[in-house]
């Protein structure tokens, strides 16, 4: 980077460029915006960044990101603790919570098995899931990994690990999303949608 730019500015630009989806141009734009922004804004941002790591931790039960341990969902006596929904990422928990139609608890894997990227079962919270099933009264494990090759591989691996345990294993149904068009659907999705059709 050019010597005409002071060092603190380059540092922030480089820091921004490391964020997902942020290129060098966006990074510079954000940095120069902050340079001209009121102090209050930059201070709030700096505090928020610092506290992000300092005040959050992983829930020791479901491994979601939380302030309290165990997290709000795991500590809620109203929820059905015998049903565990397994998701890849913390954001998936939010998506399922938004439906308002799930009353069980969660287990966050923090990724999916992806041999090409060097992510194996040991990099995920699969062992913790098995331990959780072994330890307590669990009736059903709902595998809600993404419907793609990695998510499928993860689901199959979990199935292997839990095969000998006395627990019902289910997978989220697959089919056509609302607002889509059959004409554009791929053959795999259509096939699974046909297999999983339901009575009108």
């Amino acid at each position, binding site marked *: 980077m050019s010597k005409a730019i002071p060092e603190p500015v380059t540092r922030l630009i480089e820091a921004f460029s490391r964020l*997902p*989806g942020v290129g060098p141009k966006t990074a510079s734009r954000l940095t120069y915006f902050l340079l001209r922004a009121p102090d209050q804004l930059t201070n709030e941002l700096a505090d928020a960044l610092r506290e992000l790591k300092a005040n959050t931790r992983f829930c020791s039960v479901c491994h979601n990101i939380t302030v309290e341990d165990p997290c709000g969902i795991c500590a809620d006596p109203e929820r059905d603790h015998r049903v565990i929904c397994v998701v890849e990422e913390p954001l998936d928990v939010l998506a399922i919570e938004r439906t308002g139609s799930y009353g069980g608890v969660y287990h966050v894997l923090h990724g999916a*098995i*992806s*041999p*090409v*990227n*060097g992510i*194996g*079962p040991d990099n995920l919270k699969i062992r913790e899931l098995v331990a959780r099933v072994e330890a307590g009264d669990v009736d059903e494990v709902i595998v809600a990994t993404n419907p*793609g*090759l*990695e998510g*499928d*591989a993860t689901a*199959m*691996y979990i199935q*292997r690990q839990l095969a000998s345990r006395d627990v019902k294993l289910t997978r989220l149904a697959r089919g056509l*999303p*609302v*607002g*889509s*068009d059959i004409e*554009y*659907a*791929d*053959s*795999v*999705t259509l096939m699974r949608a046909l297999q999983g059709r339901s009575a009108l």
Partner: protein
Amino acid sequence: MARTERAFRTDAIILKRRDFNEADRLLTVFTPKHGKIDVIAKGARKPTSTKAGHVELFTRVDMLIHRGRDFGILSQAEMVEPFLALRDDLQRGAYASYAAELVDRFTGSEDEDQRHLYNLLDSTLQRLCEEDDLRLVIRYFEIHLLGLAGFQPELNECVIGREPVMPEDQYFSYVEGGVICVRHAVRTGQLIDLPMVTLKLLRHMQRSPFSKVRSLKVASNLHEDAERILLGYITFLLERRLESVDFIRRLRQET
């Protein structure tokens, strides 16, 4: 095909994909006439995307790609061959990951004709769906991939003395990329054993079509030996460990 054309239609096999921007996916695809290309599938992570289901890993897709500045832009995509068994069977899927990883590592991003390697990958994915002996499929793939990538292991003559090697126990040199006979072995370091049966298996795979290889009944220890040599040679050439290998080994151990 002219290099300046703005859009082209091609068959492509998806080797890698990662999330990009808000709802896009960046795909690394392998094509017969343009080699390996990075392509952006805009909006492919939205549930209503018309491309979402058509850009799955290790599928063969009919694509319309526009040239962009850094990446190609995927305008249309229609899945042609889903290779379903790779999705329904953990082991088959893991071997497919390995095959895709090798193609990715052994190719650069030059726009070049790669139809032989493309056909090899395509038929390997098909075989990984159908065959019983997956290790045979993968070893066959490795040895032909090495040949197409310009690292064909020399199995017929000694790489030092250039005399034909007899079908007996020999040595293999990663550095020289081939067999070294017992007579010349003393003068070179870093050799690994290449027993006669393994040499015969490798030679047979190198010169025969898969239809002749598939009927072989290969014992487990011979498989291990062939894997040791080929994987060792590949790791030496790439100067790095291959990510998918650990997972395959682990699955093998657990079953």
